[in-house]
Each structure stands twice: as C-alpha cells, then as structure tokens.
C-alpha cells in the first residue's frame, strides 16, 4: 500500500523530472565532458586533450579575454549608471506624488521587450549608415557638430553605446525591485526620526540605505549574472558583423561553435565562464551577509 502510494505520487513529478533530466542534467554533464575533448561536432571521433582547452583559454585566447573585458565594462556601467538611475527613480516614485502608476508602467516597458527588438530600434535611431541618427542631427541642430559621432562603428565609442542602450533596457527592472523594497520600510520609522529632528539626508543615511542593502546586493548579483551573459542586444544593435570591440563571451562561444566548429573548446569556454559567474555572485552574497551581521 505504502509503495503503491509512493509510485502514484511519482507520476505527478515524472514529466517534470523527465524533461529536466534530458534537457538540463544531461547537457550539464556533457559540458564538463566535452570540455576535455577536441571535437568538430560532426565526426564520431573525439580526441581527448585533457585540460588543453582550458590552457588555451587562459594563455592564448586574446579574443576571449577581450570579450570578457568588454562584458566587464558593460556590467560596470550597468552596476553604476543603470542601478543608480534605477535607485534614484525608485526613491522619486516612493514619494507621495501623482502619476506614480504611469511612471511605473512606462519604466518597465523596455525590460519586457526582446534584446533583438531593442537593439534594432536603437540601431535605426543612432546609426549613420542605416539609420536616421537623431542624436547627431540634434548636435548639428544646436550648433555643436563636434559632439556628433559614429556611435556604432567608431571602435572607441561603440562599446559605451552598447552599455548605455543596455542600461536603457535594464534600469526599469532594477527600479521595480528597488521600489518594492522601499515600500516594505515601515513609515513609522521615518516619522519617529522626524520627531527626533532628523533631516531628509539623515533619514536616508540611517533608515533607507541600511534597510535597502540586501535588495541592493540582490539587484547587483542579478545585474552581474544578466549583463555578463547578454549578447542578443549587441547582435541587434551592431548587426551580424560584430567586430572584436563589441564582442562578448556568449558571442565568442557561439562563434567558436558555429564558425570554427570547435565544440569541445566552446564547452570549455562556457564552463570557465560559468565558474567565474558563480564565484562572483557567491562572493557578493557573503559580503552582504557580513554587512548585515554588523
């Protein structure tokens, strides 16, 4: 009776378990396995190369590290500019003002759009070759043509353009989480502080900021994980002909797999990248825990 009941219970989990095992667990194990081989993805022969792929990533693959630096740069912009903007907007919306709902709805429109759509629309707006380049028109219009640039083709600027468009797409998401966090802070705390003679800045420093630290850390972790792995936005924005100066790790993995047919090497790249991401988010998690214990 007991066994029969257990079997019956398994039936409910079985479909989920089956799909999960085949499409998550098996690929997960294969990434580890394949990273030790040299394989073109088609031939039945795989050559075992031990850790040679990882050695190549570490010491020879300059385009991989260039891509890592690029993603790091975009992430840095997202962590500072994008999240600061999100936080300021959340603070502004947390005040008793009208049209709060309108702002909240509008700010979250960019995050629900796909990276491809956002990239293509912005490409069309800011590019010279196949766009209207409204920004340059504006600079010409106000008589400051020296500010006009080739936003997407100039190697010195393209990455910053990508980072800013990425921030445009992402800030609404941080805004929403920050706002939800701010709304959980009890209003009585502020009233008590006011009675004690605290000014606005004092309230922020002693109440708002300390209670928001866990939320800020959560948003920071998710920003890092999301931004480091972003790539479709760049495809839409810069197009298929992405050169080294806007390449990011996932684009490198895709290129190694599809253009160079080096499946083992692509897995090794993905694996080392994944390890770095897990380590970063773990460190950040620990730091926030220490902060909260203080």
């Amino acid at each position, binding site marked *: 009776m007991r066994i029969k009941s257990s079997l019956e219970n398994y039936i409910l989990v079985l479909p989920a378990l089956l799909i999960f095992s085949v499409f998550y667990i098996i690929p997960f194990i294969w*990434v580890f396995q394949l990273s030790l081989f040299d394989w073109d993805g088609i031939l039945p022969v795989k050559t075992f190369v031990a850790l040679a792929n990882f050695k190549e990533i570490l010491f020879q693959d300059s385009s991989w590290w260039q891509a890592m630096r690029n993603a790091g740069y975009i992430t840095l912009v997202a962590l500072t500019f994008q999240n600061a903007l999100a936080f300021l907007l959340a603070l502004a919306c947390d005040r008793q003002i009208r*049209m709060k709902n309108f702002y909240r709805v509008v700010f979250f429109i960019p995050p629900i759009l796909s990276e491809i759509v956002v990239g293509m629309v912005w490409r069309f707006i800011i590019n010279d070759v196949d766009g209207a380049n409204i920004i340059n028109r504006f600079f010409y219009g106000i008589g400051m043509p020296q500010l006009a640039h080739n936003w997407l083709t100039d190697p010195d600027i393209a990455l910053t353009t990508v980072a800013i468009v990425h921030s445009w797409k992402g800030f609404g*998401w941080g805004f929403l989480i920050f706002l939800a966090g701010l709304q959980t802070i009890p209003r009585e705390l502020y009233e008590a502080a006011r009675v004690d003679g605290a000014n606005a800045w004092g309230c922020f420093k002693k109440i708002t900021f300390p209670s928001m630290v866990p939320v800020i850390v959560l948003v920071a972790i998710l920003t890092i994980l999301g931004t480091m792995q972003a790539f*479709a936005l760049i495809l839409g924005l810069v197009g298929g002909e992405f050169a080294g100066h806007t390449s990011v790790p996932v684009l490198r993995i895709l290129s190694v797999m599809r253009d160079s047919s080096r499946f083992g090497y692509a897995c090794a790249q993905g694996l080392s990248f994944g390890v770095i991401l897990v380590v970063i988010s773990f460190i950040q998690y620990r730091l926030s825990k220490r902060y909260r214990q203080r």
Partner: protein
Amino acid sequence: MKSLIYYKTKKITLDLLTHLFLFSIAVTCLYPLLWMVASSFKTQETIFSDISLIPKKFHFENYYFALSESDFGRYLLNSVFYTVAVVIAIVIIASMAAYAFSRLRFPGRNIIFAVFIAAMMIPIPGSFVALFVLLNKLHLRDTPLGYILCMINVGLSMSIFLLKTFFDTMPRELEDAARIDGCSKIGIWRHVALPLAKPVLAVVVVLNALNVWNEYVLALVIFDNKNLMPLQRALMIFQGEFLTNYPLLMAGLTVTALPIIIVYLLMQKYIVKGVTSGALFG
C-alpha cells in the same frame, strides 16, 4: 503663517523637480518605440527626411507587405504556436510537480526539489552547445518539438518554485474534503489545487509567455529551416535581407513588440508580482 508658505513652496518645488526627472526618463523610454511605430508607416523616401512622430501620410502597405509577401506572417504564427504550446505544457507539468513537492510524500522528494532550485541559480552559459549535440542525437534539432521541449525545460524550475511556494500556503481542508469524497490524487490536483492556484498560474503564464516570445539563442542554435523560425530569429534574417527597406523592418519590429506590450499592459499586475517576488532571473 510664513513658515507654512515656506514649506508649501518647498514641497511644490520638490514635487516639480521630481516630476521633471521622472517625466524626462519616461519620455526616453517611450520615444524610441513611438519612433519605431511612426517609421513603420512612412516610406523609404520619407523615413530619413520626415523625422516627426506623426507621419503626414500613413502607409499601411508596409504591414501588408511584411505579413504577406515577406513571410513575416508565418514567423508570427510560429512564435504564437511555440509560446502557446510551451506555456500550456509548463502550466500542466510544473503545477503537477509543484503540488507533489508541496503535499505528497515519496522518497527523494527534498533532494529532487533542491536540484530543481539549484538549476535555477547556477548559470551554464555553454549549455546550448551540449543541447545542440543532444538534439542532433535525438533527431529533434530543427524541429518544433525539439525547440518546445527545450523551452519547457527553461521555464520549468522557476514555475515549479512559484507554484510550490503557493501550494505550501494553501489550506488543507478542501483537499481533505475531496479525499473523503473519494477523489484521487490527480483528481485533487486537477479539481482542487489548480483552480485555487489561478493567481499564481497567471504569473507563471505571463512570465513564461514573455520568456518564450523573446527567446533568441536556442532559436538560433536549433533552427536552420526558415519556415520553422520564431520572430526574434527571423528578425535578424529579415534585417539581412531587407537591410535597405527600413519601413518594412520597422513594421516587422512593431509586429514583434506590440503583442508583448499589449499583454504587459493588460497583465502588468502579475508581471510586477512575478518580478518582485525575485523570480525573474536575468
């Protein structure tokens, strides 16, 4: 009296500045999208010269051409099909599993659940390489079924997590009553748990629908056959083929973005709930 006026002016100035700040950012959010829609009604000749947001003449033929002549209608149908199929499958599979994890006893229950949750947290950026190999072996690559199964897996962990959290808080009395009436476990899941979970199911539906509609990398790796591609993938190809026909491209972008914006405006309560419960990763 004087201080009252002082405080009032201070509050009004502060409110004005706040609105100025919020409003300028809101305009920055909306402008590119209005520009996209406006451009989709212009012609190749006027699209760069007439940069106003309201075109002088509306050219609806861009949409006609995009949807009928250039196969964009097919991609739209593909996207709708994939989204509906994946969402329905996830709702059934995830709610069954979540109910079992929350209410039923079986060996290994907690370990299996922990693995599902861990999968939600650990990023494996190279997994699409292995998925490509796997689908090739199963002869599922370049098939709708292969793509649908992969996308079900993508949304499964998060959906199970959301639903289990809900089922944990559900009162047991109704289930007990159903059991006494001779309802089977699957019957209780179907007739008691599912109807009660409607608000959470709405969150699961909306988040997964957005996710499938906007997905790109798996569509890139899995599909070679143009006739099977969803919108996002087709857009990139579309851009290559019609790179010079901007109004057409803008019509294609509008067709891709508009359904998601409409769904968002109708269901934003649920999206906000899903995001703020920390469930939306990335």
